């Protein structure tokens, strides 16, 4: 009986011209989003690769004092995987480049949003936005009269008279509509898998997880909207309720949630942050001595180590060592305050993950970005790697100055390509899928819980279906 109901549901949907038209529009939009996304991704990737090669060439070909080279520094660029074309996530709001420079701990720079106006806030056409926002509307259109129309046409009585159980009716309606959505979306997921498999096979697991989560999300939505149809007095009410739910969960709640999280865990201002780092390095943190005190201590330790009386007697350039000592302290201070900021952002993120238990849209949004590597966790992971690379980079230059030149406070010491080539280029590998899932485990649990709850509601809802 479930099969018959499901088959009828599919047949009546295929007869509906509007439904067919909407499916065609959806596919056209998928094509446009893929084309646009791919072009943007290719161009951005080319630009990054060219810039990366240019900075590497400039770096290895220079002849300079190691400290001058540390000021000259370099730039690191955040790589994006092919999956970022499916879901651009936070890319427009996070920077793409990182400056490596002496005496300065940089942040990620140049978010596209800063170069754009308000239109960017309306969103971009991506496969994720189509699957998260547009497809639910298609589902609403499919489901809003799935049960209510049977009641309005008085066919519900006939079906019951033929021995159909109310729960079978719901299962049949859910199955039919899910198969329809499957027919529309699965080819898109298969093409994605094929494209990723051919270009970046290492991302196949992420793409598969991406597709599975969306298919689960659609099942949740179909169940919810079929229930709405079953419980509504009329198709009109079912449509309005479904649309109301869509607006509330997909448009309003994400903004409200992030706003609340921002209020609960307020971030410091950039001015206060910079001032804290400036004061921290100058006066010391956690009971440390001030800059001069730390300098004196370090000098006396170094003199004692080499058993000499003054810096000029040292067999090394103390200036290089002292600069590294300053860098180490700057890193300590920076991490001290940056960790506080990161902790607050993590708390904000946690609020979003927890609230995914009341809004499946938040759950799929986070999981989608996580699989595409365009979420906050991937961003901060890149930043941490870049910051560690920067520290090692500057350390190597300072030590080269300290141990490569004995002349204290002389800057005419120079090194050339032979040395600079030994400094390895920055290589960043995106974390594995397991890492991304672990970071968004609550969003995943929320999605699975939503699935379990919605499907287990069939017997309860089926008892509440009114015949008239």
């Amino acid at each position, binding site marked *: 009986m479930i099969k018959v109901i499901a088959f009828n549901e599919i047949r009546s949907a295929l007869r509906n011209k509007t439904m067919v038209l909407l499916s065609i529009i959806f596919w056209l939009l998928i094509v*446009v989003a893929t084309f646009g996304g791919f072009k943007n991704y290719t161009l951005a990737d080319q630009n990054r690769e060219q810039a990366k090669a240019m900075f590497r060439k400039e770096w290895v070909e220079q002849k300079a004092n190691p400290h001058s080279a540390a000021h000259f520094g370099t730039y690191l660029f955040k790589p994006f995987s092919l999956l970022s074309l499916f879901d651009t996530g936070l890319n427009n709001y996070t920077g793409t*480049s990182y400056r490596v420079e002496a005496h300065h701990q940089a942040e990620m720079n140049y978010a596209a949003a800063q170069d754009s106006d308000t239109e960017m806030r*309306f969103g971009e056409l991506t496969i994720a936005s189509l699957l998260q926002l547009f497809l639910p509307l298609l589902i609403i259109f499919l489901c809003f009269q799935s049960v209510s129309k049977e009641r309005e046409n008085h066919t519900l009585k006939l079906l019951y008279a033929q021995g159909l159980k109310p729960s079978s009716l719901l299962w049949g309606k859910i199955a039919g509509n899910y198969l329809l959505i499957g027919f529309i979306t699965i080819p898109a997921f298969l093409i994605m898998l094929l494209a990723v498999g051919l270009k970046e096979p290492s991302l196949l697991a992420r793409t598969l997880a991406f597709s599975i989560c969306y298919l689960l999300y659609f099942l949740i939505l179909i169940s919810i909207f079929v229930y709405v149809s079953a419980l509504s007095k009329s198709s009109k009410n079912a*449509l309005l309720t479904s649309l109301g739910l869509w607006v509330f969960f997909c448009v309003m709640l994400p903004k409200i949630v992030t706003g609340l999280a921002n209020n609960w865990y307020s971030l410091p201002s950039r001015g206060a942050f910079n001032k804290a780092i400036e004061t921290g390095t100058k006066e010391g943190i956690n009971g440390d001595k001030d800059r001069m005190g730390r300098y004196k201590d370090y000098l006396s330790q170094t003199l004692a180590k080499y058993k000499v009386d003054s810096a000029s007697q040292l067999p090394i350039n103390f200036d290089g060592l002292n600069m590294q000592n300053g860098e180490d302290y700057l890193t300590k201070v920076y991490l001290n305050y940056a960790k506080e900021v990161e902790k607050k952002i993590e708390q904000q993120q946690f609020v979003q993950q927890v609230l995914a238990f009341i809004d499946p849209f938040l759950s799929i949004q986070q999981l989608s970005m996580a699989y595409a590597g365009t979420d906050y966790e991937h961003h901060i992971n890149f930043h941490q790697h870049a910051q560690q690379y920067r520290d090692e980079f500057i350390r190597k230059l300072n030590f080269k100055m300290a141990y490569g030149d004995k002349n204290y406070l002389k800057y005419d010491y120079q090194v050339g390509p032979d040395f600079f080539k030994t400094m390895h280029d920055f290589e960043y590998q995106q974390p594995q899928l397991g890492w991304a899932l672990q970071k968004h485990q609550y969003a995943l649990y929320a999605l699975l819980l939503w699935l379990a709850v919605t499907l287990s509601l069939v017997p309860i809802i089926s008892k509440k279906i009114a015949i008239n």
Partner: protein
Amino acid sequence: MKLFNTIFHFEWIQLKRQKTQWISLFVFFIIGCYATYAGHRTIQKQNLVLTKLQQQYNQDHVLTLQKFTDTLTAETKAQAAQAGMAQIINFRMPPLALDHPHALATLSIGQRDVNPYYQKVKSSVNYLDQENVEISNPAQLFAGNFDLAFVLIYLLPLLIITLCYPTYAEEKEQGTYALLSIQASNLTTILNYKLLFRLTVVLGLVLLLNLVGFAVAGQQTVLSLSSAMLWLWLSLAYIAFWFAICYFFLQFKRSSIVTALQLIGAWLFFLILLPSLTNSYISLKHPIPLRASLASYQRHVSEEVWEMKPIVLADSFNRYNPQYNSSINLAKDSTKNGERFIAGYYDLSERKVARFAKHIDQQLVQKNQMAAQLAVINPSIQLQYLFNALAHTGRNDHQNFKQAVSRFQKEWKHHLLRYQLTGTYFTPAELKQLPKFKLENDTNNLSIWMGSLSLWIGTMLFLMLSLMINKKN
């Protein structure tokens, strides 16, 4: 007039009886109030940041003055002797450039959460400096602000749709259409009056909500009457546009479900589909430059200029800054690391990099010009642009702030150079008369009025199409 009164009376009774209508109106009002509160919190926080920065600057000012008189130890004595040195003043108390929020920023936060709204001005410029970009959670920026502008742009059309979609069909579905056809001379007039009643309800609600918004917005900064009136005018234009759309779809006289679906389709088109399509087109047409070439150029210029002969650099400086020619000292100016060498280094490298950066700025100008032009075809985006323009929270206002900062930076640099190049120091009294940043932020009311024309044109277009269909029927 009698018919008008009858319909309004009937609609009022209908409205009183329908709990769901009241609930939707009430929920909308509450959401609007919450959005106003959320906007108020955001702007209040920004105001607090600006106040703290000002307090910090005042403290730095006091500490700098103390340095003049602190001669207790040999070290502080040496510092006291140097306390008025221009470079030290530049380091210890760089002046602040603050972009205070306009009162209406509470109602339309716009790009104020993305763009920096303050800057510590130094005598030199780093074209790649991003140190004043506010710390924020990118997920928050991505989700966007829940302000009154959002409620009006996104949710108000939905309220209008829920009120209007059954205007025609309910008569047909309740079986009263036939009765009306017999009794009333003109059915269109009846439908128009019914819509007019709903328009009145929406106007009243939006007016109330906006008045609440103005009361909250006016708490932090004075809100001018002209700005408030313009805000109301824009709200009215948008309401008219969405009523025109409803009117258009009602002409097809389809069932309430089909009409609702068509109207939701229109909402989806204007609020989600068209913006995302235009955004994708803009990003394809004008991709945002990476600035790698600028970074590379800046580093090379920095090295190249630093390696120049001091006298050549001094000559270049004197040519572009003849006002300092009285302080030329050939002996001093031919030494590396002398005052004129340093001044010349920054002067020349900044000029070179500024020329290069202009090219990138031009690309961004083109991108944003295209975005503004495309906004005209979409009343929803256009309204956001206009709200932002009124609240001084758009990109143009940020550019205006940046230009003002740039002008002030030059003023500050030359103020310091007057001391630096002559080897004179600031006195404590002179530190009280340092240049202050000023931001002229006049609202271009005319351009906002003109901008609202596109909304009215959209309204007229839909009304004309409606009349055409009506005649056809």
